[in-house]
């Protein structure tokens, strides 16, 4: 079984899945992420799936469960880079992935996490009354 590396960057954890994961590898990634969220008190998790050319119901559920469990640990999750062919197939499979925040690429995903965690008004200098 392989282990997918998790990078820590400030309050964020970054994962780029570069291999076709078997089920145990996917579950190990989920476990590792939960453990590291707690250990580093991470506030956000970014998962790059741009290299995945298949997301079936097992991997899809892993992504959804990871986002839900991270939420309980006070961390937001963004899944970035889903290939259009994968998105089309997931809909037909019947997996809507509601509850999983997504972004087009890593840059936009990071912007999304930052705005959620640092709040509006910091990035753009806007102040609330």
């Amino acid at each position: 079984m392989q282990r997918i590396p998790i990078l820590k960057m400030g309050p964020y954890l970054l994962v780029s899945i570069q291999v076709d994961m078997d089920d145990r590898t996917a579950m190990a990634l989920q476990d590792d992420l939960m453990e590291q969220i707690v250990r580093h008190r991470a506030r956000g998790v970014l998962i790059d799936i741009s290299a995945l050319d298949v997301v079936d119901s097992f991997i899809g559920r892993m992504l959804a469960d990871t986002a839900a469990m991270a939420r309980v640990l006070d961390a937001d999750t963004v899944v970035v880079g889903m290939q259009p062919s994968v998105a089309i197939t997931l809909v037909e499979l019947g997996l809507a992935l509601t509850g999983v925040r997504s972004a087009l690429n890593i840059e936009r995903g990071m912007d999304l996490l930052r705005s959620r965690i640092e709040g509006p008004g910091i990035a753009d200098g806007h102040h609330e009354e």
Partner: protein
Amino acid sequence: MDITRSEVVAVRAAAEVVNVRHIVRRAAVDLAFSLVEQTKIVTAASELARNMVDYGGGGDLTVELLSDGIRKGVRLIFEDQGPGIPDIQQALRDGFTTGKGLGLGLGGAKRLSNEFQIDSAPGRGTRITIVRWKGSA
């Protein structure tokens, strides 16, 4: 209709589902399926191969390339000698699972295929055949 190529792959363990995805991908690429068509048949294969391991005690996948006039397609036959499926209609329903899954594998694989057939009875094992034709996405 001609079968222009046929290979059999044993699927016994969950880790071998990855293998199935690669073999089916190669067949779809060899027939110049579009990326969406490739993704659909590979995803269907992943679901049915996992079911064979999870519920059928492992089994065999036969991958066939079909040629029917100008039509080209991939046929996948998943066969196991497991307990079988007592109520096929129920098993096909989205959300139905006797395990820990989402219950989307059978229904999803059917939607992702052009042809879909289940032969199963309690104690006799399960055979699921799917076909996807090129140019039908």
